[in-house]
């Protein structure tokens, strides 16, 4: 049971994914990385069926994405867009409760199991004390946790997140990534679009590196993050070193002397 893509193409006017075949293991924490516009969000949305693929086959945990019902898919896979709409004047508990929709009828009447799942999800992200707080009264990091709790309440084995760390302070970035790590430890499969290569290498056990609508490489961070990859994919000249704590690859740019001195001399004036 995993997520499998076979010759999948997708996209909109002006941008298309090249046929992609990919397998994402169940139970992994997988990060999709690549430069801006390389198609990582498009790929994630296509797997989530928020975007219809133009061709190819996708199976998610044994479900054929083309033919399965929307609720069945939603019970298997949860997706968080990059910029979720934050409805005004609803509370954390109400938001997390919406995560139960795929388990409910049209009218969304909460059963005992629904209520328990909501409480458990809020507890897991540490927001139980904020249940009655309105979303508008939360910090960016807390709001992100509330949305992740909503995905948890959905009780789908696969959670897809599109840049959950974007626009967060580094503190909340780490908090969010630690939370994903925690969910991963609990057995959820997380597939995350990330921007920061070192963060992705530090937290993920599987990296999918994309370039120009294609998968450039897939594998363990140690195997796929290299100076050659940085040059080929991002067009940067940087050196790779082992993170002192985890041994995972981290990077630092090789700065040309002349360019480095400019801002320094400006600062001195």
């Amino acid at each position, binding site marked *: 049971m995993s997520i499998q893509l076979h010759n999948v193409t997708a996209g909109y006017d002006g941008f298309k994914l090249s046929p992609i075949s990919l397998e994402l293991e169940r139970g992994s924490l997988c990060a999709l990385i690549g430069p801006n516009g390389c198609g990582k969000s498009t790929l994630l949305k296509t797997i989530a069926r928020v975007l219809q693929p133009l061709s190819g086959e996708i199976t998610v945990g044994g479900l054929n994405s083309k033919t399965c019902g929307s609720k069945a898919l939603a019970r298997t896979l949860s997706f968080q867009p990059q910029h*979720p709409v934050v409805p005004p*004047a609803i509370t954390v508990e109400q938001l997390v409760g919406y995560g139960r929709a795929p388990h409910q009828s049209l009218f969304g009447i909460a059963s005992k199991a629904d209520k328990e799942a909501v409480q458990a999800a809020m507890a897991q992200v540490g927001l139980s004390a904020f249940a009655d707080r309105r979303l508008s009264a939360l910090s960016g990091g807390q709001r992100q946790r509330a949305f992740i709790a909503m995905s948890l309440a959905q009780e789908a084995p696969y959670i897809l997140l599109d840049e959950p760390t974007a626009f967060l302070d580094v503190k909340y970035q780490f908090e969010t990534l630690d939370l994903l790590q925690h969910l991963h430890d609990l057995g959820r499969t997380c597939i995350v679009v990330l921007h920061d290569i070192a963060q992705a290498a530090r937290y993920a056990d599987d990296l999918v590196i994309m370039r120009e609508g294609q998968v450039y490489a897939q594998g363990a961070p140690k195997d796929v993050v290299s100076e050659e990859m940085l040059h080929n994919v991002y067009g940067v000249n940087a050196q790779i070193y082992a993170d002192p704590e985890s041994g995972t690859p981290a990077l630092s740019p090789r700065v040309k002397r002349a360019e480095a001195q400019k801002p320094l001399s400006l600062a001195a004036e």
Partner: protein
Amino acid sequence: MSSVVSRGTRAPSLRLAIIFTTLVIAVAMSSLWGLSVGAFPLSFQVVINSLLDLDGPQQTYMVMVSRLPRLVLALLCGAALAISGVIIQGIVRNPLASPKIIGINSGAAFAVCLLLALLPQVALVHMPLIAALGGALAAFLVLVGAQFRGVSPLRLALVGVAVGMLFDSGVDFYLVANHSPEQAAPMVWLTGSLWARSWEHVDAVWALLCVLIIVGYGLTHQLDLIGLGDDMATSLGQRVALTRLLLLGIATLLASISVGVVGVLGFVGLMAPHMAAQLVGGRARVQLPCAALLGMLLVILADAVGRAIAPPIEVSAGVLTALFGAPFFVLLMLKNRGDLQQ
């Protein structure tokens, strides 16, 4: 753990109970007042006795035949407009949206004017059906116009304004072209009035409006999911396009049937949802019934005040709702300035 949970939920539900009870009492009291004011003022005692058929035939006639149907219509149309507003604001995801902005009111008004131009002797009772067709036509045009690249809420609103203006020009043309004394009735109707409404009108619309209101309430959970954005709603298992179409259809019928029976009561569909969101929050399941009560209250009061200002002359309810609504809209815009700039 359980004590924490109950402490967290009891206070808001008590607050909700108080708000809803207050609103129901307010609607009841203003209804009573609405039945008592007018060219022949009646005391509350007489009104209540007449309702119970204990008073003289003249008073009973005035209450039961002249004033009660318009009260019933005020209740129905106030609720219908408010619910339509909640749904439209939810679909468009903009607190400044209303049935009017999607062009529904104008389409409905245009259809009625067209009918009057073609068949001047047509009975007022047929107006709601024709208005519903006009509103549906406007909504259809807006959808077609907005659908070219998938319906975005902003596009829906922009095309809605354009379609609304198109129909408004048709209404204006009708009014200019038919400038005669016998055309006064449609003019009064257009300004939004409950004048001379009878049980015939109630019979024509009550069942349909009640069904639409109930279905609308049944879909509030889906409306809440749409409020999370199309992508999120999709990933929660909703078929977004279909749900939005269904909700838009209900909102269109609610608003245009109201226009057909009482004319254009401006701003009710905007004000009531907003006041409700302030009182009980933005969750449609709670906001919608609260807005419905507020819509009833607004229309009853507008109608009653219009009759109480200078009897026997009646000021159209639509004039009063617009008079209150315009400054309310400006206040809302100032308050939402931050959100709108984003």
